[in-house]
Every structure is written in structure tokens, then in C-alpha cells.
């Protein structure tokens, strides 16, 4: 998902929320979608052992 263009990511978000996304929001929303994707990946990684 994160290799999609800013416009494609923002469009997918707008459709999920049922909102018209102003053009000014597109780069920031896309950047945040990518950031959240990275946190999803981290959350799902196996935990390192504690000492």
C-alpha cells in the first residue's frame, strides 16, 4: 500500500471516510498513512526477548 502515490493513498482514505479531501491535505495524509503502516508492521513483529 505504501508504494502507492500520494493521490492514490489520499483517495483511498477519502473514500473510507466518505469525505471530499481538500487538495492541501493530500501530501500530509499520504505521509501519515505511510507512517501508520510502518507502525502496523512494527506492532506485528515478534517481540525481542527480554533479559
Amino acid at each position, binding site marked *: 500500500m505504501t508504494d502507492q502515490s500520494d493521490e492514490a493513498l489520499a483517495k483511498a482514505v477519502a473514500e473510507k471516510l466518505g469525505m471530499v479531501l481538500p487538495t492541501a491535505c493530500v501530501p500530509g495524509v499520504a505521509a*501519515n*498513512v505511510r507512517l501508520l503502516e510502518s507502525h502496523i508492521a512494527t506492532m506485528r513483529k515478534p517481540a525481542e526477548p527480554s533479559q
Partner: protein
Amino acid sequence: MTLDFDAATLAAQVRSGTITAVAVAQESLRRIKASDSLLAVTRCLDGRALQEATAVDAKIARGQDPGPLAGVPYAVKDLFDVAGLPTTAGAARLEFADPATHDAEAIARLHAAGAVLVATLNMDEFAYGFVTDNARWGITRNPHDHACFAGGSSGGSAAAVAGGLVSFALGSDTNGSIRIPASLCGVYGIKPTHGALPMTGVYPFVDTFDDIGFFTRTAADLALIDAVVRDHAAPPTSATHAALLGGWFAQNLTPEMQSALATLTNALAPLPLVEVAGVAQARSAAFLITAYEGGILHAPALRDDALSYDPATRDRLIAGAALPPALHAEALAVRDQFALQFQKLFDRFDVLIAPVVMGPAPRIDHPVVLIDGEEKPARANLGLMTQPISFLGLPVVTVPLAVPGMPLGVQLIGPKGSDATLMAYAAELERNGVTRRTVTEAFQ
């Protein structure tokens, strides 16, 4: 006027008639007006402050008990309802909203105890940030170096206390928003056990994590304020076994913080080093829960008028609102597993100690922190070491370490319900000289 603004000292002076509450309020208001450049205060409440102070003095004149916080000046993060004023939550879009009809419950309790409300304070918009970089009210400056951030999102609260403008300040902490500015500004702060302090009349952000708390100049003042704001405080027990969290909490530290922790370890020896697994996963889960719940809360307003938000807040909220509910449930399940490790640690230790942030306050002209050798935005990443703790709803007292230079703080973390014990432990560290408020050149 040379006046010690420690809450206990001021209250004793007012109660004994050594000084009037009106004189204290006037001094606080004068200091606020002389400190415009901090950008800590959003509204100065001269009329209300003088009215409350006059009422305290009248009670004393009549021989009535004015309350344990008689005449003590304080201020609140601008997400607490103040009767007659719009609650902005740091958002320009709410600057002219309908005024609150009642004070927040915490303010009502402080009023009844004789405290005097003098101002509302700057914050990150809707509390979504760690630096107090506000599009409408500006960037709150660190009283110790105006070129540096005060931290956030309760940056105005920390700066007002550290700068000597007020005796204490209310703030809120969802992912670190009390602990981080307390650390960067060199004052004491408490994030209570989740749900322990009254949330009525507080603008929400993330229900799963939101708590109110407060900033003070001394550890002793923490218990004084807490006794007023809290419903039922458990008596403190003696904290005898402390440990230092390593692993995740020992990584990415600046040389200043490494040195400060080494000094702390010597002072508290023996201070065993312990680790927990899965902190990165926990922090990311907290990040996702925050994005989801914050996004859902704001989704209707964003659909209606997205451009009325600060772009840095808006785009985070929009992206978060689009996360699926199942992911929220998955993140909560991660929390349950993560909590088990802390339960085991608390079988052995009363207090776990960890840095609040990696080092001193970042500079405003270089707003980044180093994580694994890469520069990351401070606004979103200063909570690296606070998010995994509030994720669990644990109480935390932040104490300023007795270090030269810019302030550094550590978290004193305990099991749920141990708030009083943590405050007592902080007071003990203060008495032993391990912690102390970082003094500014302005109003000491």
C-alpha cells in the same frame, strides 16, 4: 517582588496573614505580563483571579478557613472548561466557540480549596503533539533557553511553572504530554493511574489513555495539590525497591542523559537494571490507538471543515480516522500481553525508573530527535519512552534530575493505584538532593 511561589509556602503565608491573596494574584499577573515572550499563556484572567483572591482574603478576615491552597495562583491547559470562556483545546477553529457553562471538575475542586485561577495555557492543537507548536498561539518557549522547545502537548503548563509565573498548573497526558514538558522544563509532574482524576469538563482526545495531571515546583507540592483534586487518595506506602528500565529505555540516549542516569544509579545503589520485551510493539500499538481514537473523534468536524485545522494535526487525524476498527482491537490485545511483564516486575519492585525523553529539549530551529541514528520529527517522536508506559495506564511521577545545564527528567513508574507512593518517593529523592527543580533566571 521577591516571593517564593512554592504552593505550600504561599498557602501558609496567605493563611497566616503574612501576605494577602490579592497581592499574590497581582504578582502572578505581573509576572505573566512580563513573560509574553514565552508564549505560554493564551488568556490572562485578571478579573476572575482578583475576584477569587478577594474572596479568599475576605474569608480570612472573617476568621473562616480559606482552604489548603488559599491564594495559591495556578493556570490551566486550554482544554479545561472555564466558565464563561470558550474551551479552545488549542484550536483556532474553537477560539470563538460557545463559552463553557461550568468550570471543569478539577477547577471547581481547586476553587473550593482557595486556589486562584490566573490564566489559560498554550498546547499543541487538540493535544496531538509533543512540542507545543501551535498554529494560532505560537511555539511555547523553554524558560531555560528560548531557542528550545518547552515540550508538549502541555507545554504552556510546564513553561508557566518553570518560569515562575504560577505555583502549579493543570495539564493532560495521553502519551506523555505532562511527562515530556515537565522533563524538558525541569519541574515535577504527575500522570495519575488512568481514570484516577476527574475528567469532567476536559476536552477529550483518546479516551483509552487520556488523564489530567499537574505540574509543580516541588515534589512536596504534588501531594498537596493531589489531595484536593483526587476523590479518594490511598495512603502512601514506603517504596523500598526500585529498578532502572534498560533495553529500549537505554537506547538513543544523549550523552547528557547517559551521564545523568549513571549519577542516579550511583546515588540509589543498588539499582538493578531490568528489561521488558516488546516495547517497540507496545509503542506502535499506542501510536495506532491514538491515531484511531483521535481520528474517529474528529472525523465529523474534518468532513465538515478540514481546512479549519492546523495542517500538522489535521492530516494525522484524517489518516487515523481511516484505520479499521479491527486494528484498534488488535492494538488493545497487544496491551494485554505487554501488561503481564510489568505485573511480574511489580512483584519485585515498587518503582521502575526510566528516562522521560532521550535528552534535553530540542532546538526550535532544528526540531528533530535522533532515533537509531536517523533524524525524526520531535513533534511526533519525543514520546518514544513515555508512550509504552501510559499505554498501560500506570501512574508516573516525573522528577527533574539535579544536573547542570538544560533540564533532564526521569519517570518514576509504579503499579496502578500507587500514585501516593510515587509522590512520597519523589519527595524523598528531593530531600536527598537527587532531584531538584531547574531554576530559571527570571522569576525563581
